[in-house]
Each structure stands twice: as C-alpha cells, then as structure tokens.
C-alpha cells in the first residue's frame, strides 16, 4: 500500500485510508434526503443554541439536558438506520447492548467514583483554594462567548490528554481498548476502560464558576458537534463545519488500522486544535481496529490496562536488573 503524504507523514501505508474531502462519497438519494443529510448538523447546532439561550430558568437545568440527550441519541440511532455510512458498521443487537453497558457504567459507577477521585474532587479542591471572584470578568462576558470559551478550553485539555495517551505507554494502556472498536456507532465514545473514561473526563473547563446557562450552552455544542465523531451516518458535511469541527470522517481516520492514521485527529469537538498543532488528516476510513480487527469483549476491556501494565512492568524490571531470562517480553498488542 503506497499511502498518501500528509505533511511529513505517509497516511494509509499499512491499511486503507481515504485522504482528501474530494475523494469522500456524497449522500446518495433523492432531493429530500440530500437536503436533510446536508443541513441536519448545522440546523441541530443552531436549534440547540437557541433553545439553551432562551429557555426559561425552570427549564434550563441539567435534568432537561439529560432528557434531551436521551431523545437525541434515539434520533441519531434512527439516522444510522436510515442512512448508514458503511453497511459494515451497522449496529446489531449485540453491539447495541454492549455499547449500552459502557454508557450505563459511565452513568452509574464511573460517575460515583468521579465524585471522589475525578473532576468532582479536583474542581472542589481548586475552587476552594482560589478566590474565584477574580474571575467574575469571565461570567460577565456574553453567554455565547463564555460557552465557546468553555467548549474550546475543555476540548484543548482533551486534545492534549488524548495526544498524551497515544504517546506515553502507561496512558496508552488505558486508551488502547477504545481502539479495538471495529465500527463507529453513536454510543461508541463510551466504549473503553473505566480508567481512560475517567482520565478523558478530566478537564479544566469545569474549574470556572461560570453561569449555569453558559455551561449548558457549552454542553449543547458538545452534544451537537462532538457526538458525530462516533456515528455511522453519511452526511454532506458543509465546508466550514469540517474546517472547524471534528467529524465522523476525521475520527474514522483516527480509528483506522493504519498506525499513522491513528496518530491524527485527537480533538473531540474542535478539529482546529489538530490543524493548529499539525495532527489533522482530512479523510475517512472504513476498516477500523487493532490486530486485524480483533474485537475486544467487555471482560478484556476491563482488565487490559492492568494485565498489560503488569506484564510490561515485569519485563521492564527484568530488563533493568537483568534478572530471570524467562520474563515475558513487553507486549503492546496481545497476540491472541
């Protein structure tokens, strides 16, 4: 496979990746379908912004956001059904319940743990340590600007955390299970080891004591932009949108079986961070996963970082102190 040069790197040398927007297929079908799948994403973004901007206070609360999120997920699953990007990514009942399990884990167990060791605890500690009145200038900014800043700052933190996960082995061990997904569907963002989900959830955006409405607006941007990174829907993405925002096309390259492809498109919502730091690849891939597409089941996903971490530590110690020759070699990808 020859691959395509993007910047200083060759993308698609080890597995197929389509590089360049001009090479990506368009939505097929009649004029109504074309219209819907061209304007759906911007229309939903603006609708969400308008809703959270004007919703009365009694409605602008977290429980409304959760209810909307639920309905939104059902709608996106229906879109996957109507206009799949790839037939080979179609959601099956088994994949669906597996995804729902990870989502459920995030809503219950990981959420509870976060309150003590995650961002809940960190935000509490940091907010208690500073005089946050000094940041009143922030909450005095126009709501949309606050929301944009919150969204961008949070995503900036995620970008570097994600990039670190691909470059530092201990962090990679927590993130690797997520890269064993072999297809993209709306809920696949939740698939992964709980340690990773906890780490990726850490963000500095939560530290500001901003107006709740600005926070809900920022959440709405995430919900109507970031959500598409793991979706099996073919859209005609507007040019401005794909310049600014992460898309399922970008994220499929990140999940491709091509090693260089996976080292690109790290951001969650704002692809401009990747453009800025030289890691953006505009394109798409269908063949996803690791180890020739070996699917990682839930049990292995739960133990993988610890099992591999243990093996690697033993190998490292054996190498360092030259002890038992029988110590197993470090294995980044288990050969099963």
């Amino acid at each position, binding site marked *: 496979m020859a691959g395509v040069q993007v910047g200083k790197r060759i993308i698609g040398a080890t597995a197929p990746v389509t590089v360049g927007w001009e090479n990506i297929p368009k939505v097929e079908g009649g004029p109504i379908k074309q219209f819907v799948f061209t304007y759906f994403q911007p229309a939903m973004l603006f609708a969400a912004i308008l809703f959270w901007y004007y*919703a009365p206070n009694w409605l602008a609360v977290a429980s409304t956001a959760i209810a909307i999120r639920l309905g939104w997920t059902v709608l996106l699953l229906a879109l996957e059904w109507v206009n799949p990007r790839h037939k080979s990514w179609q959601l099956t009942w088994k994949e669906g319940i597996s995804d729902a399990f990870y989502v459920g884990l995030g809503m219950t167990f990981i959420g509870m743990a976060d309150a003590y060791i995650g961002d809940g605890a960190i935000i509490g500690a940091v907010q208690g340590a500073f005089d946050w*009145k000094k940041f009143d200038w922030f909450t005095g900014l126009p709501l949309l600007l606050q929301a944009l800043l919150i969204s961008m700052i949070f995503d900036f933190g995620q970008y570097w955390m994600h990039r670190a996960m691909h470059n530092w082995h201990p962090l990679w061990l927590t993130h690797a299970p997520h890269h064993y997904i072999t297809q993209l569907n709306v809920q696949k963002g939740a698939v992964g080891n709980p340690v990773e989900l906890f780490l990726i959830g850490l963000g500095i955006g939560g530290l500001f004591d901003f107006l709740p409405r600005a926070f809900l607006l920022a959440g709405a941007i995430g919900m109507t932009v970031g959500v598409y990174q793991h979706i099996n829907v073919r859209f005609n993405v507007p040019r401005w949108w794909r310049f600014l925002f992460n898309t399922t096309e970008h994220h499929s390259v990140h999940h491709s079986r091509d090693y260089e492809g996976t080292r690109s498109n790290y951001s969650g919502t704002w692809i401009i961070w990747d453009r800025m730091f030289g890691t953006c690849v505009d394109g798409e891939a269908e063949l996803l996963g690791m180890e020739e597409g070996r699917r990682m089941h839930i049990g292995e996903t739960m133990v993988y970082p610890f099992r591999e971490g243990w093996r690697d530590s033993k190998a490292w110690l054996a190498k360092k102190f030259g002890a038992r020759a029988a110590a197993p070699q470090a294995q980044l990808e288990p050969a099963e």
Partner: protein
Amino acid sequence: MSEAAGPWGAAVQSATPARGLRIPYVDMIWRVRGEVPVDQTLTPEEAFARLDPLLRTPGTTLGVEGNALVYAKHNPAAQDQMATFTRGRLWIERAGAGAVLRFDLFSHALLLCFLAPLLFLGFAQLAVTINAYEAAAAKAEGASQKDKKKDEDKPKPVKKLNPIDEFLGAPAPEDPNKKKDKKDEDEGRHSPEPGYFLAGLFALLYLLGRWLEPWLARRRFRAALAEPVVPATS
C-alpha cells in the same frame, strides 16, 4: 463443511442435547430452539454445505457430534451474523414428506443482558447506601456543619447578564439566595435513578433481543438454505 456433512446421509433421529440446568424453562433465557423447513430435494450434505458460509467465520470452530453439526464462537466479530449465539447445534430431521433443520443455540449475550439489570440495581443500591453513610457521617460532625450553615446564610452575589444578552432577551439568572428551601432536603451526593433507569432499559433490551435474535437466526438459516452453493473456481 464436507468433513461435517458425512453423518447426515442416513435418516436422522431426534438429537436433543440434554446439557445444562434441568429446571424447566429456565434455559429459555439463554437458549433458543427452533426449526426451519429444508427443501426436500436437498440431501443433508447439500443443506449443510449451504449453511457453511454462514457458520464458517473467523473465531468459529465447527465439529460433528453424532448426527449434529456443532459450532462454538470465541469472541466473534461485530458483524458476524451469528455473533449473538456463541454455541450451537444443528441437525436435520425428517418431518412428514419433507425435512426440517432443527437448531439449538446458546447465547452468552442473552444471558448477560438478562443479568445486567441486577448489576445496575446493585449500583443504585450502592448510591443509596453511600448517601445514607455520608448523611450519618455529616450528622456526627454536627458542630462543624453549624459553621457551614453560617457561611451559607451569607448572601451570595447575584450574577448579572452581559448587556448584549439582556438586549437579545436571554432570561436573567435566578437569585441564588431565593431558592434554598428545596435543596436543603439533602438527597445525597449520588442519585440511584440512573441505576433504576438502566435496569429497566436492559430488561427491555433483553426482551427485544430474545424476540429479535431468534427471528433473525431463523431468517438467516432460511436464506442460507435457499442459496445454492457456488462451486469454488480457480
């Protein structure tokens, strides 16, 4: 599947496996049994040859047990059409003038989905327990709480909207000093509601899967049996 097809040349007897639990109907949670008609012009070898592409997928081992074809899947691919049924036994029986393919399938996924509500009810219960424990601990620290209450009694600053937002008509933020009464009835740090919701969701997903997956398996068997085998060229 030529190595597997041999034993079906002769008439077939009923070959119901009797493994697993003996409690009546309990195994219906994870086990699916049924039959699909087989074209009577087909020999058993031909019928199994037609099923071969459906079953011979990566991670699947095929074998013969008596008159039946048995398969087992180790972590099948997401798009494996039989991925839900990790083990299975298939055999052909004469039925009147024709014949039927009988199947007896086992599903880890159905069993785990059936059990998942228990896990999420457990998380809900954990939330309730932690809340109760923390409430008790807070009570024990009565004195320090009083200090906190003093802090809370101080009026909080009322946040104001930016003039641009006022002009555009965004609702003004509420006065944080006004709505205290409700929140003081402390519900605790964790809510058990997501756990209850997910338990219900998984119960529904189980019912959906228990109906959908056998229906799909039957449809796939029927489609595979209707598809003539294309001889491999080159």
